[in-house]
């Protein structure tokens, strides 16, 4: 069994070695090469990548404590544990559960909202007056099409329409079956998404923060063309 501990540690190290330089894999075409994995502008991802490492650390700690302390102690010859000892142990429950809940609340609300609140798409006012409305439809032919003037005609190519820094109100719909709209910025980072079912309209507010070619990908499995459902959207400078 000891071999487990060694292996777990070794794997963690290998894994860390991957995380740090592997940011290059983030880019579609390997053009942007970064040495350090955490770019501040990647928003929530930066947080979750850090969390992944924290998670690993907690897991390994539990592994070690269990193996060296909990199970080891228990294998030795031990007196029959008394009732009092058990009752005493149960007191830790209160503190264990309370600490956990406190941590959960802090981690769940404070961290993401405090640092990335402005990037989240869920909590917007029903109408944001300074935004421009664009209709986006996921078609049965596995494409995203756009209606920029509200005339009900959906076109392929909204190029030179979107402008950096402007807030858009994307009204997303689907033709016959469900899709998911994922907005990937030119550096290959997913910046926001919504799922959409036929018969509904989902409203997603988005501000393009870079100029260049964004890609609208499909996030929800929709059939044989799902992996090809990629539409380039060129965002011009202001």
């Amino acid at each position: 069994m000891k071999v487990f501990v060694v292996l777990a540690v070794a794997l963690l190290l290998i894994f860390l070695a991957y995380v740090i330089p592997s940011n290059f894999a983030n880019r579609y075409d390997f053009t942007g090469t970064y040495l350090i994995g955490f770019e501040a502008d990647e928003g929530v991802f930066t947080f979750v990548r850090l969390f992944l490492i924290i998670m690993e650390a907690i897991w390994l700690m539990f592994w070690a404590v269990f193996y060296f302390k909990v199970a080891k102690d228990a294998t030795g010859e031990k007196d029959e544990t008394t009732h009092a000892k058990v009752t005493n142990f149960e007191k830790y429950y209160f503190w264990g559960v309370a600490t956990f809940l406190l941590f959960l609340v802090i981690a769940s609300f404070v961290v993401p909202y405090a640092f990335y609140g402005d990037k989240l798409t869920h909590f917007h006012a029903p109408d944001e007056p300074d935004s421009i409305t664009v209709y986006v439809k996921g078609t049965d032919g596995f494409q995203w099409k756009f209606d920029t003037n509200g005339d009900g005609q959906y076109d392929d190519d909204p190029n030179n329409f979107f402008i950096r820094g402007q807030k858009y109100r994307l009204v997303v719909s689907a033709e016959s079956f469900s899709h998911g709209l994922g907005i990937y910025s030119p550096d290959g980072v997913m910046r926001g998404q919504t799922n959409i079912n036929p018969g509904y309209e989902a409203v997603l507010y988005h501000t393009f923060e870079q100029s260049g070619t964004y890609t609208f990908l499909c996030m929800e499995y929709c059939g044989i063309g799902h992996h090809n459902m990629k539409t380039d959207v060129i965002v011009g400078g202001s």
Partner: protein
Amino acid sequence: MEQNNDLDIAKEMSLGYYLTGVTILAVAALLGFIVRLSQTGALGNVPQLYYTLMTLHGMAAFVGWGCFVAMGLTWYTLVKHLDSPLHSTKLVMFIYWNFMVGVLLLVVAALFGNFGGSWVFLYPLSFYGYWENWAAFMWNLGVALAGISIILYGVEILLTIKKAGFGLLDALGFEILKPSKWKEGEKRVPLPIVPLAVIGWGMIIATLPFAYLLVYTLLEFMDLVPRMDTLLAKNMLWWFGHPVVYLILFPVVSFMYSIVMDYTGHDIIGEKWAKSAWFVATVVQNFIGAHHVYADLAQQQWVHAISEVGTYAIILPSLVSIFSITGTIYLYKFKWDVASSYVFVSLTFWLLAGMSGWVNATIALNEFVHNSLWVVAHFHTMAVLALSTLLFGMAFHIMDQYKGVYSKKMAKDALIVYVVSGVGFVHLWFIQGLWGGIRRSYRSTPESLNLFTWISLVFAFFLMFGLWMNFYNSYMSLTQSGEKVKEEVAVAAD
């Protein structure tokens, strides 16, 4: 003697279910490997192969672990801890054969009719795919049959508990509200029974609306009803689709209690805390499926809010169980053996999978990881490393009391193969997910992630191999004589 006989019957039923399940899994693992391989492009341009086998893999792995292994081992655990026979062995047999028919339909729909709607086949996708219409019909029918068996499983659990003379509400955790039950020497529901009662009840509630959706889809194929509300359908799917995961999780906790009780020779500590947590699970388990619909901005915000709070609440049974089991092992004697090694591995990965699930559960983070490979990493950590390890552990534990385990050494070696390859396998997905990788996408998307897909194949291969070792070992244990017999022979030869 009468009792013993009941336990023997339950043991055989459990092992029969288990052997079927583990056979399905041996195939499902191979499918998983092919699916991962096809993503690299090594098999040529084969999107249909990817989508169809992904669908079959997901369903087969689920049916294997959930419907056959977790359910199967339930029968033994019920009889053992209730010290009373099953309500109806005929019903248990019916559940089994009904599943078998369902599985047959699913396999035919996928392999001969090319059905590939993914394991959730989100309504109304069944009507629009690259597959044959009859195949989609057959798939929906197959899942509906499985649904019937799942409901009957819940019924059988509850009736067995009732037959043993316990109150159903008590078994669902309501005991904590009755001070009289907590006096010295009072008879209470044995702890391993509680998660089984909770899931029995939960599955009945979860499956009925989904069964309606399936039947509706079948009727729509026959042009008898019009298209229904798609967002409502998605909610009905997840009303079932989330709790059905507990069909594996909750029995696993029950088995973990059971094994640790056997190994330490004592009850699990913190019984009242554990039952309180299960009480919470009884109440909220059916109200959190909408956390799979967070990314639907068309859904009402109050639904998002309820499912976020509920999802946090459901962490309690896991948390308290990890605490109780660790504490019990700490306070009493513990022996490293096959089953206990599997318990140890399962327990630690439970924590890891749970933490990664917190990211999915938190709306602000879910927005970025939803439908990414992070989710796939999360649930494979749970399924491969936390759940299947324990299910194997429990099966070996029962086989040990049957004809014996064919080779305990092989079981321990398989665990090492499983852990090492599993950790590597899921981590490549975690990384791909956090670097923008989309799930259920033939070819790694974005393409630059393909390198990671290649690397993960090595791990996938060994993972499959580890599973096959356990499959072989189980098969030999049940058909031939176990190590026990071999040892006796060795002693006699000395």
